[in-house]
């Protein structure tokens, strides 16, 4: 029991809070500098979405550090135990309690965002429409079975089942609806298929004269193009077919089985929107006589249950509907001449904790205001008293 009490005291102490805050500072500082070399996505995964990590000081000396996920969890525990349970329940602490509640809400909201939010993009040319958006970073393997001349059926293997298949690891996927099993191996987050020349050897399989060349991840991770090796293993002990799937392939890898041509794709993960978005017009306005963008604006039509509604999406004014938010993210083609059709890209986000920071901001503002005003009034009174005393002397 004594050990438990000591442990509780430690977890709820100011000292523990200071340690976590300083470690968070170190992590944030290192993570900021690492972005110069590795880009924001990779750094975010390594430093802030992790439990533990090893940072290489000057790219040489390994330093083990707790990750952002662990530190935020510990901060939350410290906040609950120290900031709510152990704190003196006194009138002078009301502001602090309110502030702690707001900070707790921020941490909860960051966890909900991390665990439950989805984000991707939707690119539309003018007059084009869609109700699907794609992931920036996640990939999926799609197997397409032609069911008739104009119809087909899709089978999806989500990326979370194969993104760890690096090095010698492989995984077999089975389905009673398929006449074959699938084996995936050697997933490469950024890769390029190359022809195998006669004067060099490669450590990965060569298929039809091609192999997957692993590339270093791009600093802007959304520019990565993934690749993976696939084996199609017929259930009737027929010959195993091996192939390469690549995210930018122009034509899918195909296998003929039972008189059907099955196709296999590696594509960005996609999600369905509960409504359709049609891009009517994209407008890009520059400040006169400069190349400084003044306005990026998409005139869109939101189509839902047969009802069309015209809306505008512009910087700082996204479209929010049914839990999804569409932001003006980019546009193109960059070299378009006047009159050329333009496309607009929307960042699409579904985040259940979307509005939590607003509430937290209000709560924290109130809490800090109450606390510091109490302190300020006390300080002014003390100083006035001192001045009055000095005058009397």
């Amino acid at each position, binding site marked *: 029991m004594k050990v438990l009490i000591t442990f509780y005291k430690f977890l709820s102490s100011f*000292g523990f809070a200071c340690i976590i805050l300083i470690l968070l500072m170190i992590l944030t500082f290192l993570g900021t500098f690492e*972005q110069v070399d590795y880009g*924001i996505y990779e750094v975010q995964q390594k430093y802030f979405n992790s439990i533990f990590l090893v940072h290489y000081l000057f790219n040489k000396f390994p330093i083990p550090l707790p990750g952002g996920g662990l530190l935020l969890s510990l901060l939350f525990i410290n906040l609950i135990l120290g900031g709510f349970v152990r704190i003196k329940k006194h009138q002078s602490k009301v502001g602090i309690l309110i502030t702690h509640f707001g900070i707790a809400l921020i941490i909860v909201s960051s966890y909900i965002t991390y665990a439950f939010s989805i984000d991707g993009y939707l690119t539309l040319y003018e007059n084009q429409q869609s109700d699907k958006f794609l992931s920036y970073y996640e990939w999926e393997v799609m197997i397409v079975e032609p069911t008739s001349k104009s119809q087909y059926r899709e089978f999806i293997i989500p990326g979370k089942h194969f993104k760890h298949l690096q090095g010698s690891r492989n995984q077999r996927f089975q389905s009673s609806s398929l006449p074959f099993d699938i084996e995936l191996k050697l997933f490469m987050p950024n890769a390029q298929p190359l022809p195998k020349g006669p004067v060099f050897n490669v450590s990965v399989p060569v298929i039809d004269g091609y192999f997957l060349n692993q590339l270093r991840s791009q600093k802007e991770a959304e520019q990565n193009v993934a690749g993976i090796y696939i084996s199609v293993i017929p259930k009737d002990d027929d010959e195993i077919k091996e192939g390469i799937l690549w995210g930018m392939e122009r034509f899918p890898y195909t296998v003929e089985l039972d008189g059907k041509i099955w196709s296999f794709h590696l594509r960005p993960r996609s999600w369905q929107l509960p409504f359709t978005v049609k891009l009517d017009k994209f407008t890009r306005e520059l400040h006169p006589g400069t190349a400084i963008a003044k306005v990026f604006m998409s005139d869109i039509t939101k189509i839902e249950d047969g009802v069309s509604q015209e809306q505008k999406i512009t910087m700082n004014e996204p479209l929010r509907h049914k839990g999804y938010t569409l932001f003006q993210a980019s546009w193109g083609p960059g070299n378009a001449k006047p009159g050329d059709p333009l496309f607009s890209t929307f960042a699409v*986000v579904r985040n259940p904790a979307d509005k939590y920071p607003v509430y937290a901001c209000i709560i924290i503002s109130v809490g800090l205001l109450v606390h510091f005003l109490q302190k300020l009034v006390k300080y002014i009174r003390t100083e006035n008293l001192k001045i009055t005393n000095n005058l009397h002397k």
Partner: protein
Amino acid sequence: MIHFLIISSILSTLTGYTKTNDSHWYNDTLNNAALIAIQDSGRIKPLDTFARFRLLRINGRRVHYTENRRKMSAIEWLLDCLFFPEKAKSYRVFLVQNDAVLDAIGISRLDKKKRDRYSYIELESGKRKLFELASEFSKIEEKERNIIQAQTVHLAENISLFELLIHYLKFAGFRYNVLPESTLSQVFSDKNIVCFSDVLHQSNLVVEQFNKLREKSTSNNDPVLTQKLEEYRTLLNDIDILGSQAVAIRLFPPDKPRDLEKEWLTPSDLVALKFFHSNKLDTYINLISTIEKLVAHKNEPDKFNDLFTGFLNELSKLSIARGEYKKIPLEVFFYKSQSFYYSLIIFVFSFIFIALSWLKPNVPFLSKPGLVLVSVATILLTFGITLRCVIRARPPVSTLYESILFITVVAVLVSLFIEFVNRQKAALATAPVLGMIGLFLANKFEVKQGEDTMTSLVAVLDSNFWLSTHVTTITIGYAAGLLAGAIAHVYLILRLVKYKNNDPTAFRNLTRMVYGVICFGLFFSVIGTILGGIWANDSWGRFWGWDPKENGALLIVLWELTILHGRMGGYIRELGINLAAIFGGCIIAFSWWGVNLLGVGLHSYGWTSGVFTALSAFYITEFLIILFIGGWLKLTEVFVIQKKGHTPAA
């Protein structure tokens, strides 16, 4: 219009109507020229502002000193460039920071210093080599260029900008002799000499005749016909060349409402509109004709001044009709009033008084003027910032330059508030120091950038709501953190000089001030950071993206929270809080300027170059202070404890 008259009269009062002996211009002419509205860098501004920043960019200062040390204003320099280009070429306005640039282009330096100013004439012989080198160095990414490469490119750009100015009014001196037997004689109603405006007036006829002659010449090799065609070709070619040189200043407001046509016109645009789109441009051609008269009478100041006043009135009518003139006089007034410059000077004097009052605390006539002068300087600074807000119709901070001004004024105001509450003179001493440093930095930054500081904002920043909430609160947080650091320096210095024999009450009070300011800063930093996240959520779809600028703000919050919790837990006391406040200043400098040097992240609108040296010097100084002064004081504390056998005051 009343507004315009009032400001004009103030300007006239400020500068007078007289003419300086060796100047071409009446002050009245210069005042009128300053008030001409033009479009530049995406916004409507006075010609005065354009002149100031163009000269600042080329010359490294806002005025030019002539050979006989007369101070020439930017607008006068610009008028000379436009109307007396040959004279302007002899002005030593090209600042060369390092003479190695001149060695590289083969210019002799003779009696010049390493960093000196040169005239266009002096540089002209090396121009070709300069442009060759600049073209080569431009292929290197800006951040990768060494100092000489960067300065070579900069000098070449400045020469190009200067050439654009001196060639701008070349069209107005154009005269074409029309022979009586020429078909052009019919087009120009038997005029012997034709001006640029005449050709624009008759552009339709000229083009029509030219096309007819061209058609005829395809089926006929008559040498007379060929000669006539050549006359037209020569004329059109001259107009094309002169027009293409007149691009430096967008002088003419479109005659359509602002919503329909945003871009103002240069003489070059007028040529294109007249010849390629056959637009009716009588108003503009009349203005061009007036410019021709101005050039013709440039050596007759009285005549020129009369013509110029009429020209300004006609031109202003166009911008007034579009509702784009109303802030022009105010902006001219803002720059002529030099409120930041005078504020800086007064801060310096106030500091002298306050420093003397510290040395002689019992002399009341030393401390009172100090307080009065700080207040006057602060009012001037606030006045300048307010004028900028009115001119831009923006909250106080939307650029890095404005953040320096705003942080300065907030830090000074908070200091004055603390002084008002505790009257210990510590905060009063900090106020002018911060005012001086802030305004000095703002001036340095403006000179270094050499560009208009009221720039157009990129689309994502174009939100007055977020600028006035997130940006303002976060900069108040910066200001408070820096102020806490500044007061902490006062604490260390006083401890070092054993002020009042190390009276613990005085030092405890100073620490309370530092701590109070940190709390004040934490409030704004936390709210500002969260508001930034909410803005990011609205703009980019995520509350937090671990972007360097966001991380910088988070570091400030985390450090200030650490100080608060460290103090409450008893881990840091008086000296610790002060040293932590100084370290907090370093974190704020990192968030404010340092992250911009990394060159990554979404806050690309805040990138700056060239502040690395200044920032490094700041960090080295602060770390040395923390290490040596902090260390020395800590050792002294330990020594005192051992000697007296009790703990120091918390």
